[in-house]
């Protein structure tokens, strides 16, 4: 039982980070109806910016984070302006492939910058573990999970109570209708990409704390996509729910099945889960079911 609790707690804490990546994908999808894989690179570049400021220039952690978020926002803006905007009006499939192409393009640059070396940084969060009812919890993980929850809460508040959030929700509902009541849809698109990139930077910085800045880092985006699909592509609570479920399932499955088959379960457990969920609920756990007309 202790083993199970340990696994599930650390899985849940991990899931918070997946949820953050998924949130950035969901935000973009809600406003622009584009599923983006490029988020993984925004995340990796965010971590790189942070690394450059924190380790390279020796700035304090909070300042480096702000710089990284600002640079990430600029990158997100550039992505929207240069790559996504020319494709407005073309099939959504093209935009999806565009994010793939963008992923590859940035991946090359990312590898060039790394040139074969993993970059890590000393943790800026408190380290050590604390024990609660025989369950060991790493304090750093707990703090990063708390950061995720705060960011999630902030996003929900922005969406619900600010004018910009109202504009985003209206845009998500229908582009034409939003435009006709005077919302600047294009500005909303830019804004959504900037916010989403900022979220990615936060996720990237907290992720790189545990796994170093290395080739596999951008591929976390595929996990983010899995989470977004499991939770439902157009649902913000779904992203959190999906993230927690994925983290839990991954860790528990890995803990119990790994010794039997010799490792690697953690990578596939999420995909098996995704296939099962998609077969039972094609639009995710809390996604809106769409009825198609000819």
């Amino acid at each position, binding site marked *: 039982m202790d083993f199970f609790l340990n696994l599930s707690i650390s899985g849940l804490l991990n899931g918070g980070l997946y949820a953050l990546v998924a949130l950035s994908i969901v935000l973009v999808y809600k406003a622009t109806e584009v599923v983006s894989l490029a988020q993984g690179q925004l995340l990796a570049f965010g971590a790189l910016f942070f690394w450059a400021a924190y380790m390279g220039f020796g700035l304090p952690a909070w300042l480096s984070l702000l710089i990284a978020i600002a640079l990430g926002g600029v990158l997100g803006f550039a992505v929207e302006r240069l790559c996504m905007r020319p494709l407005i009006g073309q099939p959504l499939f093209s935009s999806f492939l565009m994010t793939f192409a963008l992923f590859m393009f940035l991946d*090359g640059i*990312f590898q060039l910058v790394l040139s074969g070396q993993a970059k890590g940084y000393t943790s800026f969060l408190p380290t050590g573990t604390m024990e609660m009812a025989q369950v060991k919890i790493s304090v750093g993980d707990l703090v990063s999970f708390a950061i995720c929850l705060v960011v999630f809460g902030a996003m929900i508040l922005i969406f619900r109570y600010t004018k910009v959030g109202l504009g985003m929700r209206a845009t998500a509902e229908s582009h034409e209708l939003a435009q006709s009541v005077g919302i600047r849809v294009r500005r909303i698109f830019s804004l959504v990409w900037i916010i989403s990139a900022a979220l990615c930077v936060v996720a990237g910085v907290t992720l790189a704390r545990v796994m170093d800045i290395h080739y596999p880092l951008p591929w976390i985006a595929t996990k983010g996509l899995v989470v977004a699909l499991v939770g439902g592509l157009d649902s913000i609570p779904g992203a959190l729910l999906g993230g927690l479920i994925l983290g839990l399932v991954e860790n528990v499955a890995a803990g119990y099945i790994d010794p039997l088959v010799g490792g690697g379960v953690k990578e596939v457990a999420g995909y098996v889960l995704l*296939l099962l969920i998609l077969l039972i609920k094609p639009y995710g756990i809390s996604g809106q079911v769409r009825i198609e*007309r000819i």
Partner: protein
Amino acid sequence: MQPCGTFYETYGQDTAVIRTRLQWIILCVSLAALLTTPLYGGYYMVSLINKIAITIVAVLGLQLVMGYCGQISFGQVAFMAVGAYTSAILTLDLGCPFWVALPLSGLTAGVIGIIGGAPSLRIKGFYLALATIAVHFIITWLVMHLQITGTTNGLHPPYPSIGDFVFDTDEKMFYIIVPVMLLMTYFAKNITRSRVGRAFVAIRDNDLAAKVMGVDLFYYKLLAFFIACFYAGIAGSLSAHYYTAVNVEQFPLTEAVYFVGMLIVGGLGSITGVFFGVIFIRLLDEMVIFAARPLADLFPLLGLAPAASLSVSAFGLIIMLFLIFMPRGLAHRWETFKASYRLYPFAY
């Protein structure tokens, strides 16, 4: 479009792929030129053509399922792996000759492809794309953890042979790979012209409308996946016996992304487009490798490492440019060029 004064009087003439005597001559001459490449081309050229031909077989399958049937699939490379491993296991463990293993590996990949394509009945678009990525990861994980596939060590299938004659060089393999590629192209072209091909296009354009018109979605979607994975299996088997090594690292997800990129560059929904796309991207890769050396001399700090990352970046950039400026691909350009030269000097 035909110039005025050209008439087709029978149904056969109207549906023919090769219509005029000149086209027959061009076809025969270019086939002869292709098949005699080993006589005048060097080793480098022959091995490049082999690589390109194997990729063309796999991408032809992807074109059928994605370009014609509209089902996005990132699983093609995983099914290539299925074909490669099937072929290797059949020849190594069961002592099957290559000639039997080749179609069998295609069939195995096709049958597994039906299972992999099953989600397409419930979901589509991005959801399906992600489901096929999931299938890719599950298949590669299985390959890495099953005993029969030699886990991470991979397998070493033998060269194909007839009696005592062993196809053990690139030049000899050329005469297996290229005819198979031509045969598969012939099949693919004819599938698209048949009832099945028309059903695929109907499903791509609007699957609900197709269903209302009486196209059996269940049958045709799974058939599309079966055919695509059959092609992937054949390509996998060819590559297994060409390199005489099968390893899970030969089948990364990025390769599947490359395949989709080749379709974009070539043009979705066109068999000629496959050739344009594959050759364009593969040549681009080769050029980047050539360019890497002078670049390394210019920036000694970076060393030779940039070659791989540069080719990835160049690929991404090319796809982005194509999506923005030429979304219908090279095949469409080729068609407009042909039309204009046929009608010259008139506009239409």
